[in-house]
């Protein structure tokens, strides 16, 4: 089925998320939409899927104009979408999830799940999905859940499949498997619209690449185009993708974690006997698929996890058991994983957020009296220094884009002398241009002699920044390897296979 978008515009108030977009997806092609976060890719696909009504423009299927009033219409016309965040009911089985919304019933409205089961087995066999129709969705790994979403679309006879940032939640191996599945589907005649901002995957799988920037189509590119060219098309200016950092010059080891164990309130062990150390002037990057204990590890160091045993020392001083204020006071800079939840107070102004953990220190406060002019002055300097795009220091932080919010958090944590810097997902949601800048700042912090700990689920980022790489799997440390370790080895480690081939975890 040939899908055409003609002159699609979508405005929210006066803001155009999409403007005059033309796109042709040929049958049996993988068509990639490449663009930064906030470029308007998802909006465009939501228009196509009938979730938004376009302000202007037309959608044509095989040359016939169509008008979708909702996802139901889109599905009926043969368009399927796999969202970034899965739309599955965790306590339902695979078959029940697939049937949901399109249940086959026998006489008297009795649900007949058998038909769905059969279809799942067929599709599963055809594409090698290995999905058991009777498994509970909540027990399945993320990669398999994603396949369930794809099956859902295929059962509804989707001819065009939209995949919205499908690799964000996958390990490198799972990603490779997904790319294989996409190729198979294409060879079977399905058109795929693949939304991503990860250049490596895009180049690996696409037939055609369309680059979108600030709601407009910048141009098409073949998958053979050089990575730097694609990146500069996305950002709109030349970018350097490789960080030319000097080799680490580790000095004294000042940060030592010994046998750290964290228990969740329900009694399960989420961080299991982890020991490592970081020297001054060294970056240790912690890799791992999301949810393998990284959050708890950093929070235990900061002192906001309960039920923590072991030892964490900085400059010979024990940090465990200290209140957060004292840990920060010992010179720990902390960038939390989820900035909107833990890093920022949304209704507060940018200026206030820039002193969120410094508000009671001189020069911002004198006793309990705060000094608004100093807070403001500080904000102006940091906004300038970190190129935070905000209408004013008084704008509420919650109104900034994700990347700028992240810059606020990074600016705050890097604005005082540090003895240790911990950053979780330091560049999540940040555009390519700003990633470059933030990475340089992190390396600069290392070069002044601060031990730096980076937690990232983006393997590219880990490999870019790390002087040593630690891999976590199910709360255990699979191993610590040098920075030059190949992707494949790291990928296997992220799935629990140790660097020597042993299997951890179970």
């Amino acid at each position, binding site marked *: 089925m040939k899908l055409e978008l003609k002159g699609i515009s979508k405005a929210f108030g006066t803001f155009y998320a999409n403007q005059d977009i033309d796109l042709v997806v040929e049958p049996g092609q993988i068509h990639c939409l490449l663009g930064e976060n906030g470029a308007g890719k998802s909006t465009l696909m939501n228009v196509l899927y009938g*979730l938004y009504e376009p302000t202007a423009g037309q959608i044509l299927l095989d040359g016939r104009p169509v008008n979708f009033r909702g996802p139901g219409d889109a599905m009926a016309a043969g368009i399927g979408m796999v969202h970034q*965040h899965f739309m599955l009911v965790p306590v339902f089985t695979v078959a029940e999830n697939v049937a949901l919304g399109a249940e086959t019933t026998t006489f008297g409205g009795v649900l007949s799940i058998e038909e769905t089961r059969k279809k799942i087995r067929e599709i599963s066999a055809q594409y090698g999905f290995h999905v*058991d129709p009777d498994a509970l969705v909540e027990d399945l*790994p993320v990669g*398999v859940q994603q396949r369930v979403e794809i099956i859902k679309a295929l059962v509804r006879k989707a001819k065009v499949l939209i995949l*919205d*940032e499908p690799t964000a939640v996958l390990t490198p191996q799972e990603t490779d498997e997904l790319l294989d599945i996409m190729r198979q589907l294409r060879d079977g005649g399905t058109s795929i619209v693949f939304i991503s901002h990860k250049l490596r995957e895009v180049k690996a799988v696409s037939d055609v690449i369309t680059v979108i920037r600030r709601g407009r189509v910048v141009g098409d590119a073949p998958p053979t185009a050089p990575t730097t060219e694609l990146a500069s098309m996305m950002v709109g200016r030349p970018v350097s993708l490789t960080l030319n950092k000097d080799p680490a010059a580790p000095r004294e080891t000042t940060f030592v974690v010994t046998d750290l164990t964290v228990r969740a309130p329900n009694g399960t062990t989420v961080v299991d006997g982890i020991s490592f150390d970081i020297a001054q002037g060294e970056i240790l990057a912690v890799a791992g698929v999301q949810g393998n204990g990284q959050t708890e590890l950093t929070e235990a160091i900061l002192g906001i996890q309960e039920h923590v045993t072991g030892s964490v020392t900085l400059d010979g001083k024990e940090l465990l058991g200290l209140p957060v204020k004292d840990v920060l006071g010992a010179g720990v800079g902390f960038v939390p994983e989820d900035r909107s939840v833990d890093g*920022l107070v949304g209704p507060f102004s940018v200026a206030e957020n820039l002193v969120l953990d410094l508000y009671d220190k001189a020069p911002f406060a004198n006793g309990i009296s705060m000094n608004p002019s100093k807070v403001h002055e500080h904000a102006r300097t940091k906004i300038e220094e970190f190129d935070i795009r905000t209408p004013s220091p008084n704008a509420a932080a919650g109104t900034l884009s994700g990347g700028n919010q992240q810059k606020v958090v990074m600016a705050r944590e890097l604005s005082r002398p540090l003895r240790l810097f911990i950053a979780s997902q330091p560049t999540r949601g940040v555009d390519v241009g700003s990633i470059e800048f933030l990475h340089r700042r992190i390396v600069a912090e290392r070069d002044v002699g601060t031990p730096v700990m980076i937690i990232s689920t983006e393997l590219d980022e880990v490999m870019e920044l790390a002087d040593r790489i630690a891999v976590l799997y199910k709360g255990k440390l699979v191993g610590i390897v040098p920075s030059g370790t190949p992707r494949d080895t790291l990928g296997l480690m992220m*799935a*629990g296979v140790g660097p020597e081939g042993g299997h951890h975890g179970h």
Partner: protein
Amino acid sequence: MATEDGKIPDSSAPEGTAPGDSVPGATVPAKAAPAESPQDVQAADVALDTAGGLHEPSLVPVSSQSGDVGHKQGNVLQQIMMGSGFVSILAVVVALVLGGLLIASTDSDVARTAGYFFGRPSDFLGALWSAMTSSYVALFQGAVFNPRQGFLPLLETMTVATPLICAALGVALAFRAGLFNIGAQGQVIISATAAAYAGFAWHLPSVVHLIVVIVMGIVGGAIWGAIAGVLKARTGAHEVIVTIMLNYIALFFLDFLLNTPAFRRPGENTPISPRIDESAAYPPLIPGSRLHFGFIVVVLLTIAVWWLLNRSTIGFEFRAVGANPAAARTAGVKVPLAMILAMAFAGALAGFGGVAQVAGTEKVLTGGIAAQIGFDSITVALLGRSTPWGTFFAGLLFGAFRAGAVQMQIQTGTPIDIVLVVQSLIVLFIAAPPLIRSIFGLNPGRKKNKPARPARRSAVATATGGAK
């Protein structure tokens, strides 16, 4: 922002697990959701259902009464309490107009002229207009100015507003720290009790006595508020439930005390305390009126609360805890301590209200010492958008309603209760900002961009998930 926080279930499950293999405990426990917990939602339901403890809870839980209570309740509450001041003003206007129509509907002239409306509509409209205006003119004359008494009514308004503003400042302060303090009533009662006891039982030199009375009142209110704060911080007990219960405890404790020899006026059978000493009372501010020194205290308190919230580290912590406790905790704020402190401050402010009642207007302690002050103060804080000066002027407005209502009834026969109706309408309109906005056509583009209903939720979800 649900998708931002939403954790993908079971992302830690191993890559190679065969489908159907259950992985016990592999799901990483989600972090404490900062926005709201089921208890928050329930507590909010109860608060709405009982009008903050004013009524008995209904038999059918609120959550079952309407289809749409739940998910975003906490945020809705915050929106209602801290929305735009413009909506507040419009809400008052609309409530006054509706109240006026109600007044007119009971007017005999209006009813008579309505009979021949199609014959001479001008008669009807004239009668309608004069019924509405005469009542409000009487209200104004009773509350602000009339030729006979000059500005004396305004002084009465200020007198009535004094304890109300104090208690409302407490509600507003607690709310800025994320705590829905329904307990102003109880805090006023306890502080009034403590202050009154110091006023009639101890006999001290003049200035000292008043200071002791004030301190007793503040301490009483602060302790009563702090109880809820401690329970919330230490055990997670929801402050709405706790403060409602503390209201009852305070009320019946006072009733009990007034029947003990220590509190009952000698030789009286009714539960009423002795008069407080003259040295324990606020000095009158303007001779010939009831206005007392307490009003100066209120102005100072309003300035103090403004400074505390906007210029002090304590206020910074309160506001951070109120807006995002998770981020506050990560930034090193001791969240439990901030909660306890905020409730103690709120109680202390309500305590000033109790003192104003005892040492300012009433001079004796009775079971009805707190009247409806504690409950009205919630409305006042709501109308004032939880800002100190907004609360101050909202308190004056409510004081004016109360003071003017009597005059209105005397002059025009309009029942006092109509003022309660207007007050309730104000709350109704503030609680439904979209209603106000649609009445005044302030919702541009809302209809145009409205996607199909089932689509909207996921549309928003994906939009926020994707658009960074």
